[in-house]
C-alpha cells in the first residue's frame, strides 16, 4: 500500500522526527510504502500544495496534520473527493470528521497546554512564563493559550529565536527582572526545556522555580529524573505517526478501520518515570 504523510512540522524538528520514526516503523511492519513530507517552515499555503501533490499521486491512504482547517480544507476535501482515505493526526481533532477524515489520532495542543497548566498550578506555581520559540506557529501558540487557561495565574509569553544560548539568556532575563516568576513552561524540550533548566541552575534557583516542557528529549528527561525539572508533556507522538499508517495499511488490505478517534496524549512524564524513557527518547521513539 502507498501511504503519504503530510505534516506541518519539519523533518529536523525533534518532535516531528519522532512522528516520522513512528510512521517508518509502521511501514516496516506492515510492508506499506510510506512517504513523509513537510514544508520547510510553518507554511500553510505550501502545506496545502503538498497535500495537492500527494492527491495527484492517488495513494492508498493519506495522513495529514491540520493546524489550520481553513487553509487546508480545500485540499483535504479534494483528497476525500478523489476517494483517498484520510486520517488526521496531531492537530485538528475538532474539524477532522467535518472534512471527511476517517478518524483522528492525537491530542489537542490546547488541551495539552491546559493539562500542563493545571499540573503546574497544583505543584505551587503562581506566576508563569511560556517560552515560545516560533511565535505565529498556530499549534505552538495554542499550547501557550492552553497553559494560560489551565494555570489560572498570570502568564507571560516570551518569544525567542531558534538558539539555545539566546533562550537561556532570555529565561535568565525574565527570572532576573521579575522575582515573582516561579514557573517556566517551554514549548520544546531540547531547544527550550534544557536551556531553561540551565538558566535556573545558573541562578541558583533550582527547586524554587518550576520548569516543565512540551515534548521529550533525553537531556530534559535526565533533568526531570534528577529533579531539576518538574515534568515533560508527552503526546506519545510516535503513535501519531505509527497508528494512522497501520490503520490505513489495514484499510487498504482488508478494509478495516477503527470506529473512533485515538487520543495519544497528554501524558505527563514525571520524575518517577523519566529514567525509563531516556533511552527510548535517545533513539527517537519518545
Amino acid at each position, binding site marked *: 500500500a502507498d501511504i503519504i504523510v503530510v505534516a506541518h512540522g519539519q*523533518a529536523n524538528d525533534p518532535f516531528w522526527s519522532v512522528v*516520522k520514526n513512528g510512521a517508518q516503523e509502521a511501514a516496516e511492519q506492515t510492508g506499506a*510504502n510510506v*512517504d*513523509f*513530507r*513537510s514544508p*520547510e*517552515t*510553518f*507554511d*500553510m*499555503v*505550501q502545506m*496545502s*500544495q*503538498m497535500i*495537492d*501533490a*500527494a492527491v*495527484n*499521486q*492517488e495513494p492508498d491512504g493519506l495522513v495529514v496534520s491540520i493546524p*489550520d*482547517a*481553513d*487553509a*487546508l*480544507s*480545500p485540499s483535504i476535501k479534494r483528497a476525500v*473527493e*478523489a*476517494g483517498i482515505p484520510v486520517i488526521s493526526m496531531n492537530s485538528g481533532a475538532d474539524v477532522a470528521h467535518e472534512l471527511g477524515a476517517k478518524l483522528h489520532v492525537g491530542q489537542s495542543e490546547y488541551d495539552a497546554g491546559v493539562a500542563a497548566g493545571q499540573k503546574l498550578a497544583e505543584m505551587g506555581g503562581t506566576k508563569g512564563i511560556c517560552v515560545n520559540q*516560533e*511565535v*505565529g*506557529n*498556530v499549534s505552538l*501558540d495554542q499550547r501557550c*493559550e492552553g497553559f494560560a487557561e489551565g494555570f489560572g495565574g498570570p502568564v507571560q509569553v516570551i518569544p525567542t529565536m531558534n538558539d539555545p544560548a539566546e533562550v537561556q539568556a532570555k529565561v535568565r532575563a525574565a527570572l532576573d527582572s521579575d522575582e515573582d516568576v516561579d514557573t517556566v513552561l517551554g514549548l520544546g524540550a531540547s531547544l527550550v526545556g534544557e536551556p531553561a533548566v540551565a538558566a535556573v541552575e545558573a541562578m541558583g534557583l533550582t527547586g524554587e522555580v518550576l520548569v516543565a516542557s512540551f515534548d521529550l528529549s533525553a537531556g530534559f528527561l535526565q533533568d526531570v529524573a534528577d529533579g531539576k525539572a518538574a515534568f515533560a508533556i508527552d503526546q506519545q507522538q510516535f503513535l501519531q505517526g505509527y497508528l494512522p499508517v497501520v490503520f490505513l495499511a489495514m484499510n487498504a488490505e482488508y478494509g478495516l478501520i477503527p470506529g473512533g478517534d485515538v487520543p495519544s496524549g497528554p501524558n505527563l512524564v514525571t520524575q518517577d518515570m523519566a529514567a525509563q524513557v531516556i533511552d527510548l527518547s535517545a533513539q527517537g521513539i519518545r
Partner: protein
Amino acid sequence: MPADAAMAMDERVKTEPFLARLMKRPELGAIGGVILVTIFFLATADSSMFTLSGIMNFLTPAAQLGILGIAAAMLMIGGEFDLSIGSMVAFAGMIFGVLTVNLGLPLILSIPATFVFAALVGAVNGLIVIRSGLPSFIVTLAGLFILRGASLVGLKLFTGGSTQLRGVREAVEGDMLTPLFSGDAFGFFFTWLADIGLIEKFRSGTPKVPGIPVEILWFVLVALVATYVLLRTARGNWIFAAGGDRNAASNSGVPVDKVKIALFMATACAAALVAIITVIDSGSTDARRGFMKEFEAIITAVIGGCLLTGGYGSAIGAFFGAIIFGMVTIGLTYTSFDQDWFQVFLGGMLLIAVLFNNAIRKRVTGER
C-alpha cells in the same frame, strides 16, 4: 536598418550563431536550468508529476513565489533589496483579513485599501533608504521584524488573542471580484475537456484539473508587464541605470530617487497581491505567512540571472527561477527519496541547475 547592415560588414566581428546570440540574454540560462530539472524529475519522479494536474500543482507555489521574485528582481536590478516582503505578505494579509472579515468591506474596497497600505509601507522603506543613505538591506531588515511583529500584534488584537484570523472565505463568497483572485480560471473549458475525455477525471467524475489556478495567470501577467517595462520603456532604462551606477545615472539626468521609491512601492504591492491571493485561497491568515519568502524571492531572482550588485538581470529570468524553485521543492515529494534528504537535494539541485546553465552560457557565447 542601415545601422545593422553596416555592422554586418565589419571585419572585426565574427558571425555569431543564433544560439550564441540567444544565450547572451540573462534569462536564457534559467531556461537551461528548467530543462535540466525537468529531465531530472522525468527520470526520478512519479509519472503523475508531469500530468496536467501535477504541472498545475507545482506551478501554483512557483506562481506565488514568482510574483514576489519578479518584483524582487526589478528592485535588485534597480540596486536595492527588500527583505520585508515576506513579512509584508503577513501584514497585508492581516490588513486584508481585518478589512473583509472584521469590517465586512466588499473586495472592491478592501483590495484597493490593502494595496494602498502596502504601497505606503513601500514608500516609507524607500524614503528612509534614500534620505538616510543607509543600505536598503538594513532598513528593510528592520521592516522585516517590524511588519512581522505588527502582524502578530494586529492579529491578536482583532481576533481577541489568536494568531490566526479565519472566515475570509465566507466573507468573500459571492463577491464579484473573488474569481479574479481565487480559484481556477477557464473552469468550463476544463470541464468540457474532461467530458470529451481529453483530461483525466477523479473516480468521482470531476475533472482532476478544474481549471488554471488564477495565481498562475497573475504570475504570467506580472512577468509580461515587468519584462515590457524593463526592456521597452524609458522607466526600464532608468531602473537599469539606477542600479548600474547611482551617480552616473543621476549625473545623466535619471531621477534615481523617484525610480527607487517607485520600485519599493511596486515590491510591496506584489507582496500584497500574493497576500490577497493566498488569504482568499486559504480562507485564513496567520502570523507566519510569507515566512522566509524574502529570501526565496531573492534566490529566485539570482537563479534567474540578476546580479546582487544591481544593474543586471531580467524579469523573465526570475520567472524561470521561480519555476525551478517550485519544481524542486514540490518535485521531491513526487520522488521516493526520503524526506530527510530533502534539503540536501534541494541544495544540490539548485547548485547543479545554476552551474549547468552557467556552463552552457559560457560555452555557447565563447566567454572565457
